[in-house]
């Protein structure tokens, strides 16, 4: 029985809700009570003026009788049946759900149908929770880092102990060194195990998986070389089109990643409207990569220009560019890497980066030539500015974000007088006497 043939059931349901007797309704609309009874039991098709009269008499919209309130319910029932089939649940009694009769089921047993639909929604919610927890176990960078620390230390201990136990004629200096390493590693193992247990004890929120969704989003953007032709041409502009684009991306496995990707794409689209692709490229040709000139030409702010520049193909800019966006806490929200400028995958970055300096002077553009300490001596022109995300109300605190454009300086451009040394993250930074250091480096002083 199709949905259009359930009009009679809906009329009966609405009549009951309105507290009108069948005979009374029949009288009001000028038909016999027995004919209305046949209609209400779906034994007579109904439409046209008679249906309009019934809707008026019952005080409901016509669509409530033709489509009913159960459209969403029926959709959920069909979804539940499809999921049960996909999950192998339909085979329990060897009988699949009669999806072609979902309308009839919802119409005749609305209470049971609602129970089934609510159960399905609950299962979906629990599945998402399981997915989130599983995702966290797999990808939580803090958990992964803790486990990595424990297992790496265990590996060092096992390997060192094995050398000590099995190597015949081990030179005294080697033996002493390995004993020292063993002692050091066993202490580290005790500490890292304790830290891991504390972390598992303290963090019971499945949402606490910082960093991971951002990585998925960055992978997604990188796979498009940070340039989305569909948005540039206006082919992707509606909510549904953004949603379809995001849903089609296998890298965006978590809901959080999809939400972040959506926000990033919407920001991209807004910037592209203010600074359309072709005019922006022409402006780059004329003015060069001069963000202030570009901002004035397009009547926009520097932060938007920085973001827009980072979406331009390398062939247009004739150079690689990197981009880092952080919030007021210093948490990195988005990264576009650039060769030679190390952006840590996990944990906090170097506090000397201009993107963080800009947070201390909101709205004031900051430009620094920096060089990351390490084996490479590449220099970068870093342009940063912190901007308020929205307009705060009176006496409201503005929420700032900071963005930094990273432009490599060609090696042939001669030495700079004023190069600010920065690091990637403290753990791999060799600058031991840095006043901004948070934690010791794993690199020895001789490195």
């Amino acid at each position: 029985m199709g949905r259009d043939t359930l009009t009679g059931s809906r009329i009966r349901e609405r009549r009951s809700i309105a507290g009108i007797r069948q005979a009374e309704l029949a009288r009001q609309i000028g038909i016999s009570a027995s004919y209305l009874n046949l209609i209400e039991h779906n034994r007579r098709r109904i439409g046209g003026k008679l249906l309009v009269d019934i809707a008026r008499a019952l005080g409901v919209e016509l669509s409530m009788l033709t489509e009913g309130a159960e459209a969403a319910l029926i959709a959920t029932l069909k979804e539940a049946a499809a999921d049960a089939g996909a999950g192998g649940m339909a085979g329990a009694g060897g009988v699949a759900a009669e999806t072609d009769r979902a309308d009839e089921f919802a119409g005749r047993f609305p209470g049971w149908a609602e129970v089934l639909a609510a159960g399905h929604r609950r299962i979906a919610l629990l599945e998402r929770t399981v997915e989130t927890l599983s995702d966290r176990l797999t990808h939580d960078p803090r958990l992964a880092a803790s486990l990595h620390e424990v297992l790496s230390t265990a590996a060092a201990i096992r390997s060192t102990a094995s050398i000590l136990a099995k190597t015949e004629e081990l030179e005294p200096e080697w033996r002493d060194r390995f004993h020292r390493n063993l002692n050091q590693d066993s202490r580290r193992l005790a500490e890292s195990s304790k830290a891991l247990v504390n972390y598992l004890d303290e963090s019971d929120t499945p949402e606490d998986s910082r960093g991971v969704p951002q990585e998925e989003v960055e992978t997604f953007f990188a796979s498009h070389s940070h340039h989305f032709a569909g948005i540039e041409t206006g082919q992707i502009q509606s909510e549904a089109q953004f949603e379809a684009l995001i849903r089609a991306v296998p890298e965006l496995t978590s809901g959080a990643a999809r939400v972040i990707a959506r926000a990033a794409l919407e920001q991209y689209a807004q910037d592209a409207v203010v600074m359309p692709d072709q005019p922006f490229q022409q402006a780059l040709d004329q003015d060069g990569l001069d963000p202030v000139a570009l901002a004035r030409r397009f009547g926009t702010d520097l932060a938007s220009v920085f973001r827009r520049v980072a979406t331009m193909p390398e062939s247009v800019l004739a150079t690689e560019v990197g981009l880092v966006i952080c919030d007021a806490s210093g948490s990195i929200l988005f990264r576009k890497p650039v060769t030679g400028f190390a952006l840590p995958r996990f944990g906090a970055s170097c506090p000397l980066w201009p993107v963080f300096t800009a947070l201390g002077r909101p709205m004031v553009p900051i430009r620094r030539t920096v060089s990351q300490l390490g084996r490479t001596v590449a220099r970068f022109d870093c342009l940063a500015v912190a901007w308020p995300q929205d307009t705060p109300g009176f006496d409201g605190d503005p929420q700032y974000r900071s963005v930094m454009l990273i432009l490599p300086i060609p090696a042939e451009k001669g030495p700079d007088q004023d190069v600010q040394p920065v690091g990637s993250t403290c753990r791999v930074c060799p600058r031991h006497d840095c006043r901004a250091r948070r934690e010791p480096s794993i690199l020895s002083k001789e490195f």
Partner: protein
Amino acid sequence: MSRKVMLIEDEPNIIEAIRFLLTRDGWEVETHSDGTDAVAVICAAAPDLLILDVMLPGKSGMDILRDLRELKELAALPVLMLTARGQARDRELAEKMGVSRFMTKPFSNTEVLTAVRDLHAQASRP
């Protein structure tokens, strides 16, 4: 002729143990601890075999492996990957990227030594 192993690992005591182990087995061992410039360092060292940790500062071992396989001269370099994450999908990802052997921490010295010898022998066969 000396056989050269490049070890990319950020754990100093693992470096020391593996260096000792392989040096005793007749290998020349070069080490590096940062993922950021690892590909350039490997290119410059031109090793016979690479031992590569997955979780490295700057750039992950997976990314390094992917970059190596795109370089003509290093596309066939035997790579033994060490990781604290032994999950099936990490292994599958590494295999897809062309890893020669995948080993989870904590490993035994014998396992490492055997893997290094096997991989080198396989690569040396005409």
